[in-house]
C-alpha cells in the first residue's frame, strides 16, 4: 500500500467504483460548500453593489478592509466561528457546533469578503458606464443596484464560482467547527487529512482526485463564462 503506483491504482478504482462512504463524503462537501456559496452571495452581492454605487467618507478604508478580508486565514475564521458557537459563546444556545450548519457558516464567513470585494470591482466598472444614465432616469439607489446586478450577472456567476472554489478546497475552518465526525461532518478535505495521517494513501488520493475534478470543473466553468463575458463586451 505504501507503493505510490499501487496507491494511484487503488484510488482510480475507488473513483470508478465509489463506496457509499465516499459518495457520502463527496455529497456532504458539495452540500456544505454550495450552501455557503449561496449564503455568501445573498450577502456579498448586494454589499458589493452598494459599495459600487455609493460614495461616502471612509469608503476607501472600507474597501481596503474588504480586500484585506479576502485573505482571511481559514483557521482563524474557524476559531472565531468556534468561539461564537461554543456553549459559552454568544450563539452557543443554537447548539450548532460540530454540525454541517456550523461548517456552512464558517465557509460563508470565509468567502463572503471574496464575493463582496470581487462583485464590487465588477459592478463599479459597470456603474461607471451606467451612472449618468441612471441619474438621468432618476433611479433610486436600490433600482440602480438591482439593474447593475442583473446586467453584470455573467461576471457575477464567475465571482460566485470563485467563492465556491475557495470554499470546497478549504480544510482548516471546517475541521475546527465540524470536528471531522464520520457520517456527520466529514468532508473531502478533512477526510484527506485524516486518511493521510492514518497512512490510507489510496483513499486519500481517491478523495483528492475527486476534489481536483471538481476544482477543474469549476475552473473550466469560470473560464467558459469569462470567454462569454469578453465576447459580450466585444459585442458591446
Amino acid at each position, binding site marked *: 500500500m505504501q507503493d505510490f503506483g499501487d496507491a494511484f491504482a487503488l484510488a482510480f478504482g475507488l473513483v470508478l467504483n465509489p463506496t457509499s462512504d465516499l459518495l457520502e463524503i463527496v455529497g456532504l462537501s458539495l452540500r456544505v460548500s454550495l450552501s455557503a456559496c449561496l449564503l455568501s452571495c445573498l450577502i456579498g452581492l448586494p454589499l458589493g453593489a452598494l459599495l459600487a454605487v455609493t460614495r461616502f467618507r471612509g469608503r476607501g478604508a472600507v474597501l481596503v478592509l474588504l480586500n484585506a478580508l479576502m485573505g482571511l486565514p481559514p483557521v482563524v475564521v474557524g476559531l472565531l466561528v468556534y468561539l461564537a458557537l461554543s456553549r459559552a459563546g454568544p450563539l452557543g444556545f443554537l447548539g450548532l457546533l460540530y454540525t454541517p450548519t456550523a461548517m456552512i457558516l464558517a465557509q460563508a464567513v470565509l468567502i463572503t469578503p471574496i464575493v463582496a470585494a470581487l462583485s464590487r470591482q465588477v459592478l463599479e466598472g459597470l456603474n461607471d*458606464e451606467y451612472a*449618468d444614465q441612471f441619474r*438621468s432616469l432618476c433611479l433610486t439607489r436600490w433600482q440602480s443596484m438591482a439593474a447593475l446586478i*442583473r446586467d453584470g450577472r455573467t461576471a457575477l456567476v464567475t465571482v460566485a464560482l470563485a467563492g465556491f472554489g475557495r470554499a470546497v478546497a478549504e480544510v482548516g475552518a471546517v475541521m475546527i467547527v465540524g470536528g471531522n465526525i464520520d457520517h456527520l461532518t466529514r468532508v473531502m478535505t478533512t477526510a484527506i487529512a485524516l486518511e493521510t495521517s492514518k497512512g490510507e494513501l489510496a483513499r486519500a488520493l481517491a478523495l483528492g482526485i475527486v476534489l481536483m475534478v471538481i476544482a477543474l470543473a469549476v475552473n473550466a466553468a469560470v473560464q467558459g463564462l469569462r470567454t462569454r463575458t469578453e465576447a*459580450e463586451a466585444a*459585442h*458591446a
Partner: protein
Amino acid sequence: MRDHTFAPLDCTTEPMRLNMEDVHLSLGGQPVLDGLTLCLDRPGITVLMGPNGTGKSQALRLMHGLARPDTGQILWNGHPASEMTQTQALVFQKPVLLRRSVLANIDFVLKARGGDRSRAAALLAHVGLAAKAQQPARALSGGEAQRLALARALALDPRVLLLDEPTASLDPGSVLAIERIVLAARDAGVKVVLVTHDTGQARRLADEVVFLHHGRVVEHAEASDFFPRPQTAAARDFINGRIVV
C-alpha cells in the same frame, strides 16, 4: 400634427422656461463655461451650436441637473435644475443601453418610473424597432441604438428632451430617421434642446439657434434670422464651414 405614441402633454401645465444666469464651470482646472447666460422660453427646437470645447455638452448636463455649476444659477420655471430632472430626458451622444433585449430596455424605464408598461411595443414601433424587440440591445447598429435611446427617453413622457449630438457618426438614413422622431416629439409639444455640429441638421431642425463660443452665448436668434444674417464673425465662419477656434 400630434403624435400620441407617447402621452401628450397636459395643456394646462406651464410652458417650460429655462434661465441660466452667469454660469461658470471649470473641469480639471480649465474653464469650460465662462459667464454663460441664457433664457429659453419658447417651444420648439433650440439648437446649441459652436466649435468643439466651447461647453455645449456641459451646458446640456447642467440644464439636466447632472452637474452643478461652480457659480451661477440654472432654473427651470423658477426651480433649480437638479429638482427638475424628472421632467426631462437626456439622450447621450453614445447611447448607454442595458445588457438586455431591445424591448426590455424600454420596459425597464417604464417599470422604474411607474409608467404604463403596455406602451413599450408602441414606442418601439414609433422609432421603427418593432421587428427587433427581442434582439439584444447591444447588437443594434449605431443608428438603431440611438433610436432605442430616443424611444427610452420618450417613455419618460418628458416635457423637455435634451439631445447631445444624437446623430454624430451616423449614416444619412439613420440621421433622417432620428430627425423624424425629434420633429414628431416637437410636434407633440415637447421642448427640444439639441446640441449639434452639423450645420445642415441645424438648418433642417432649428426653430432658434444658440451659438456658443469660449463658454459664452455669443448669439441667440430665430433660425430664420441666424442662418442668413449671423451677427458675429465666429458664427459666420462656423456656418460657412471655416475653422473656428
